């Protein structure tokens, strides 16, 4: 069975500080990987997706970057946090083309920027 794990579970960071969130998926080779952001009580905004190691596509510009250093790992980062970065960050994976709307989410990372 596939499992997806995100870290850290929660972070409290200062404005202007750097951030790194991670996601690891086990039990699925070459998954499509995604980062989503969700404001408290809000909808899910797709940030990035990756269909293979080393390749990441940006969906929206939010002063964030993403990388996929390994087949099973997806990293979200920024060098300088903004207040607007607060929220819930969700990593997800999907099957191949034609099933890309069928997302399986990790447990999420809650970010509070002060």
């Amino acid at each position, binding site marked *: 069975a596939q499992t997806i794990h995100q870290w850290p579970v929660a972070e409290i960071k200062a404005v202007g500080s750097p951030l790194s969130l991670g996601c690891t998926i086990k039990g699925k080779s070459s998954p499509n990987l995604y980062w989503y952001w969700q404001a408290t009580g809000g909808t899910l905004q797709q940030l990035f997706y990756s269909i293979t190691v080393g390749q990441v596509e940006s969906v929206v510009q939010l002063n964030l970057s993403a990388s996929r250093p390994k087949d099973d790992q997806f990293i979200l980062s920024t060098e300088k946090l903004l207040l607007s970065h607060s929220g819930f960050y969700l990593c997800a994976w999907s099957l191949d083309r034609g099933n890309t*709307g069928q*997302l399986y989410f990790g447990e999420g990372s809650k970010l509070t920027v002060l």
Partner: protein
Amino acid sequence: QQQVRQSPQSLTVWEGETAILNCSYEDSTFDYFPWYWQFPRESPALLIAIRPVSNKKEDGRFTIFFNKREKKLSLHITDSQPGDSATYFCAASEGAGGYKVVFGSGTRLLVSP
């Protein structure tokens, strides 16, 4: 910009009633429409999904009705239970070769006992 719209924003029904959640979309290239539910302090989870080749998809008490011509769909929850209380998101994904999945703003459902 591709958009998926949901209504109502919030909905309260009594236990045993049918809850109806609405969704509409703009882009005709969408070809997969999943619904997700999210309980407080948890991640969204796939509930049920439909493709435009069908106009109805049923899974237990949950049914999606799909109108391709009007670009509308709805989720019906029959015999609603308090445990169904959650936020429901309608989503849409692009056709083959696309990896963008767009979510609606969600409907917060409360089922009162």
